């Protein structure tokens, strides 16, 4: 390659072309999805970012032809995503051809060859038409501006700084004006003030700062110089988000810290005024992120991150790693956790006084082990978006098949969870969505008749709650028809006639194996293998599924799963000679009851009063038949645990041995599941301890009580 700009550029070029190849592949893939009618704003944005990144780099290397074409392409995409042009199958075809031509230009640039002058002109014409009346979109060299620093080894970097004083900043003697002046000395400064939070004059407190600012600073000074300006206020009395808008490398970590300020790619038409997109200067607090750069509020943080990565020509500093390698790492960390626990146990006889260094060293080891383990888990964590992205199509396809109208609302797509959990969730989620559409949502006529909007709504949400991930699938359909469910259950012999069941118990019958109320077996659902499979899949990974239903108003399925299938925090308890692990997330408190607190009721068994409330007492030794355990409640210890359903029960154990992190090992990989036990773990001394399944224990105790009653 002829390179008159110096030898060191060739290396950047090589990186650039590698990136181009990836970006083109991504663009192609995404456009294919658009062709399939899976169009979403995200997809258009993704294509846009790809093209924009290619353009950015091309500008830096002065591949003018490439820049020109990419620019038109990008502008057309912008028109599409902003709704100025409509995405039809024909348009999608043009996008495919556009990608091909773009690829030609990239290859030409790479080989240093020249394409015919009119190469791709037909596509160009189509694209221009899309932009709207073929508006003259001569390739402004503007793209080079944000992109220039992307690859050039030196020169001016563009920084975007979002500065939001917190209440009281002025009172601490910090004057924004001084900071702005100081910024000005660093380079060329563009300032936008956000006056959105200005109160009416009468309500204004003169000692408060209601303004916030977005600065665009072009400087050859480094990040440190900017940091220095805000040294006295950042994080303290003001929120300051600083990030490179055109500098390579440093971007990543920052965006996560301050997603609000993530730059959206300057779109073609707006390049003149630079950062117009940022006008609504999103009060830099991360919580304000959703209204920032991305067009779709719910997906803002990730979209903004990606925009930041792609839009400014920064290549995402990521590598693809074989999952096996990560698994090996996870296993190794698991072993390390065990070894660390063992060391801790061995050293429990030493005191800080006698062995200060040893104790301190062990504490640090435990610290680092935990951090290492969290980092490793974070590698495997993925947003549930990958899972949710299947849902829209499913809903669309099914609703047309079933002649129903339904829209899908999603939330929490960026909730992260271990990859293995995501894999386990896929089938159950599909089943539940199918079920919601097939059994839940009524036909438009039925809906209208009961005064509901013709279009049903299915809500798919994800969130973290107390160390677990909760996936909720809610529909506003007819709810569970309890009378019919009960009738069916009796018919199938699942329930005996005359048996009294609560509404919740009836609802849970739909998870019984072989249960299906669909009058006819459809190809959508109703094979009677759906819901019990859902429950089994979820339970297999230590999760639970609960259904809440209101007749006429809809149903809500709540899936609750552990965030990771590998490690958890547990409390080691002793019962007789056995030791068990109670998941820390289940534990509410523990206490030693007095004789007054313990009562025995004829029908229920033992109960405890705790601050005026009655809770069920389950002696673990009784349920598990453990010999040599403390049977006297007042001499043992009661651990109050909460089940997923929110019930509290008291487990009687001998004593608490301490809290520790445990590596979860499956029992059924070499044996089979054991009731009341969710998994096993290995303790510091190499012995196996069983992890208790609180909800299952409650269930077992319930059965035991019923059996006892029946026997009477």
């Amino acid at each position, binding site marked *: 390659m002829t390179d008159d700009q110096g030898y060191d550029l060739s290396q950047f070029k090589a990186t650039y072309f590698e990136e181009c190849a990836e970006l083109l592949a991504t663009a192609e893939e995404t456009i294919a999805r658009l062709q399939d009618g899976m169009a979403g704003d995200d997809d258009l944005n993704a294509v846009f970012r790809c093209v924009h990144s290619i353009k950015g780099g091309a500008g830096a290397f002065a591949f003018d032809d490439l820049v020109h074409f990419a620019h038109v392409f990008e502008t057309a995409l912008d028109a599409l995503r902003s709704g100025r042009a409509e995405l039809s199958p024909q348009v999608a075809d043009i996008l495919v051809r556009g990608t091909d031509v773009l690829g030609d230009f990239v290859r030409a640039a790479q080989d240093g060859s020249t394409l015919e002058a009119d190469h791709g002109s037909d596509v160009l014409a189509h694209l221009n038409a899309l932009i709207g009346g073929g508006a003259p979109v001569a390739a402004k060299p503007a793209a080079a501006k944000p992109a220039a620093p992307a690859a050039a080894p030196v020169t001016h970097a563009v920084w975007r700084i979002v500065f939001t004083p917190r209440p009281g900043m002025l009172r601490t003697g910090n004057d924004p004006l001084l900071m702005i002046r100081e910024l000005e000395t660093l380079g060329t400064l563009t300032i936008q003030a956000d006056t959105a939070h200005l109160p009416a004059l009468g309500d204004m407190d003169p000692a408060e700062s209601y303004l916030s600012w977005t600065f665009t600073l072009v400087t050859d000074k480094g990040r440190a110089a900017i940091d220095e300006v805000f040294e006295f206020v950042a994080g303290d009395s003001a929120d300051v988000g600083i990030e490179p808008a055109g500098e390579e490398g440093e971007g990543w970590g920052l965006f996560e810290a301050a997603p609000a300020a993530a730059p959206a790619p300057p779109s073609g038409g707006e390049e003149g005024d630079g950062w117009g997109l940022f006008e609504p200067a999103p009060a830099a607090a991360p919580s304000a992120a959703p209204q920032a750069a991305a067009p779709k509020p719910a997906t803002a943080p990730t979209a903004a991150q990606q925009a930041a990565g792609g839009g400014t020509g920064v290549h995402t500093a990521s590598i693809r790693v074989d999952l096996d390698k990560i698994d090996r790492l996870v296993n190794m960390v698991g072993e390390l956790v065990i070894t660390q626990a063992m060391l801790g146990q061995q050293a429990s006889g030493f005191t800080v006084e006698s062995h200060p260094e040893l104790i301190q060293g062990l504490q640090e080891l435990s610290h680092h082990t935990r951090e290492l383990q969290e980092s490793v888990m974070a590698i495997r964590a993925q947003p549930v978006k990958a899972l949710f992205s299947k849902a829209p199509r499913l809903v669309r396809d099914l609703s047309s098949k079933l002649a129903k109208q339904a829209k899908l609302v999603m939330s929490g797509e960026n909730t992260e969870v271990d990859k293995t959990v995501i894999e386990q969730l896929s089938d159950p989620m599909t089943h539940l969505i199918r079920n919601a559409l097939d059994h839940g949502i009524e036909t438009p006529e039925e809906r209208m008749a009961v005064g509901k909007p013709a279009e049903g709504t299915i809500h798919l949400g994800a969130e973290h709650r107390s160390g677990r991930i909760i996936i909720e699938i809610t529909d506003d359909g007819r709810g569970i028809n309890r009378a019919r469910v009960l009738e069916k259950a009796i018919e199938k012999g699942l329930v005996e006639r005359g048996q009294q069941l609560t509404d919740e118990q009836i609802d849970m019958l739909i998870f019984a194996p072989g249960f299906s109320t669909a009058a006819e077996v459809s190809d959508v659902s109703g094979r009677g293998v759906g819901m019990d499979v859902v429950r089994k899949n979820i339970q297999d990974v230590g999760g639970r599924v609960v259904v809440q239903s209101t007749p006429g108003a809809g149903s809500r399925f709540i899936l609750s799963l552990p965030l990771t299938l590998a490690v958890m925090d547990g409390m080691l308890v002793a019962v007789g000679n056995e030791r068990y692990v109670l998941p820390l997330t289940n534990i509410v408190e523990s206490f030693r009851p007095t004789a007054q607190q313990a009562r025995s009721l004829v029908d229920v068994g033992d109960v405890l009063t705790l601050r005026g409330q009655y809770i069920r007492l389950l002696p673990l030794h009784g349920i598990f038949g453990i010999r040599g355990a403390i049977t006297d409640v007042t001499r043992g210890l009661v651990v109050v645990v909460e089940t997923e359903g929110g019930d509290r029960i008291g487990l009687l154990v001998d004593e608490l041995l301490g809290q520790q992190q445990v590596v979860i*090992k499956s029992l059924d990989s070499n044996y*089979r599941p054991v009731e009341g036990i969710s998994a096993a773990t290995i303790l510091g001394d*190499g012995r196996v301890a069983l992890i208790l399944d609180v909800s299952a224990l409650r269930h077992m105790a319930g059965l035991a009580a019923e059996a006892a009653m029946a026997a009477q």
Partner: protein
Amino acid sequence: MQSPAGTDGVQQFISFTIGDEEYGVDIMAIREIKGWTATTELPNTPTYLRGVINLRGAIIPIFDLRARFEGRLTEASARHVIIVVAVSDRVIGILVDAVADIITVSSADIQPVPELERNEHASFLTGLVTVDGRMVALLDLHHLFDLDLASHATGVAA
């Protein structure tokens, strides 16, 4: 392996003893042989399931063969032996008194279990061989632990 099944169908077994009885297990199924270590009991499981142990990070169940056959628990000590075997895709341990021998027999020498002996045991005996005047009963571990390893098995306390 020095003598895989040849034209004459030669097979190798590891034989072990439980009391006076000698049993053989296909050598190909055996993963390792280790001394007895204390197990962690699993609640509400048959008594012949002694519990689980940690085998280099894997949790494996240990079955007491004496208890399985005679209903009487082995009084396990350091002299007792756990034979770790693969059964289908599982790895399990069986507790026996001692490992006796490696025996090589040709298929022709394996005699069927006599009809009269067909009791509860017989279904997991694949045959009998005589080695140096001792009778060795060949075990089919798949059959023996089928129910225990099936996920739907119900724990029947003995």
